[in-house]
């Protein structure tokens, strides 16, 4: 089953298609303010840097560098089973995002290049879908 056949878990936050700069990586759906501030996710309440509502959607490339990772051993929520790994990635386009990394034998090193991909998951109703995660650049 490909992402084209099945839905995305959070279609408001990312898409299967990449950007011109990174066509083969799912793009994150961010935004840019007229003042130049680029952020994620898209919101239209107002720019955190200047307060303007002159905000345009901007697709952000699924490429960045690893700021930090943490292996989570304990999780209270029903939605996830520990253990899993959380990563903070500074996207090349600017914003810092935090989400799960794909399960990987090799240790992650701060500073290394990361790429986005769509990982198969199940939605809250148990239906298969895809969620954007990050993986080490091969």
């Amino acid at each position, binding site marked *: 089953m490909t992402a084209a056949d099945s839905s995305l878990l*959070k279609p408001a936050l990312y898409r299967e298609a990449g950007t011109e700069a990174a066509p083969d990586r799912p793009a994150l759906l961010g935004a840019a303010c007229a003042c130049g501030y680029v952020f994620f*996710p898209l919101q239209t*309440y107002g720019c955190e840097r200047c307060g303007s509502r002159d905000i345009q959607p901007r697709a952000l490339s699924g490429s960045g560098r690893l700021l*930090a990772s943490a292996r*989570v051993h304990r*999780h209270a929520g029903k939605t996830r089973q520990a253990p899993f790994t959380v990563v903070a990635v500074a996207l090349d386009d600017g914003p810092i*995002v*935090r989400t799960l990394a794909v399960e990987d034998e090799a240790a992650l090193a*701060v500073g290394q290049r990361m790429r986005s991909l769509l990982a198969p998951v199940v939605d809250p109703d148990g239906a298969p879908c895809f969620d954007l995660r990050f993986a080490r650049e091969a």
Partner: protein
Amino acid sequence: MALSDLRPAYVAGIGLHRYQFASETTYVELGLTAVRAALQDAGLPWPAVESAYVAKALLPMAPGRPMLRHLGATGIPIVHIEDASASGSAAFRHAVMEIAAGFAEIVLVVGVDKPMPVGRAEGLARIGGLADDAIAPFTHFALLADAYAARTGAAVEDIALVAVKNHRNGAANPFAQHQKERTLDEILNGNRVSGVFTSLQCTPVGEGAAAVIVASEEGLKRHGLGLDRAARVVASAGRSQRVYEDSTRYDAVLTEETASGAFREAGLDPADIDIVELHDAFTVEEVEYLEAMGFAPEGQAVPLLKEGAFDIGGRCAVSPSGGLIAMGHPIGPTGVGQIAEITRQLRGEAGTRQHVGARTGLAHMVGVGAVCYVHILAKAS
């Protein structure tokens, strides 16, 4: 406007209920224990208090008057203050302002809380992140620890030494939730929580209460009291997070901005400070914030920690109460409890955890959102 432009505000009384695991004790019992202790410590009767600030983050609406009326309902204004983890610090700041500006002579600050489910309002804004539900506070700080270790070369064992020190200090504090010394091995081999953190490197969940009486010299004089055991508030700074040039260091920059403001107001430097009580909910925060505030050069907090620079009796006692890690973090009380500990140290009344010769102390707290408060106290006499 700085505090030095207004009349001095003093901490004249302190009182606590031990921080402890959730129990059947009502918040009223917790809070009244701390308030009565603070009044007794100050040598003041309850009717002398003209205004009350109640710091709480988890308790539901309006716990204040139902609690304070049992001291005799005197009709004073009672306000509740919530700023997440920094609720107590925020309440203290506003009590100080009320005294300094001359609106009252004697004010009570009491922080009280019990563990209960509460969410952050931010989630209601419907600006979801990719995996917000996967990132509990301990994971947020585990990520910080990973970045800190990469930046400074500090090892997991090194950062855990903060917990060794703070549990040792807590063991000497009858108000601490954890009163047991722990070896590095015990700390490193505890239950793994997130990233490098084991459970003893994280603040416990609990309940408690802490109270301080803030007063003017005039107010104390009217009750035949002097300043011999008082601590003067020489700085109060509050900031909130904004968009920083380097967005990767937002935690540290918020603390740095707030602390700089406090040092400027007090006309002091980190080298002048003898006692620090800071937001050490997780071990890495102590070293991160010590560097951010200038108590150690960038990347040098761990070597200084290892040398004993931050021990009681070292260059500057950091978390002599045991900090959030060992004393605990019941939330509403925490910031107020820090002020109580600093005052106790400045009076020379801290017993086996006394940092000899303490003349100035700094209290630092952050709250999700994010906000940060830094206060500096100095011996009045």
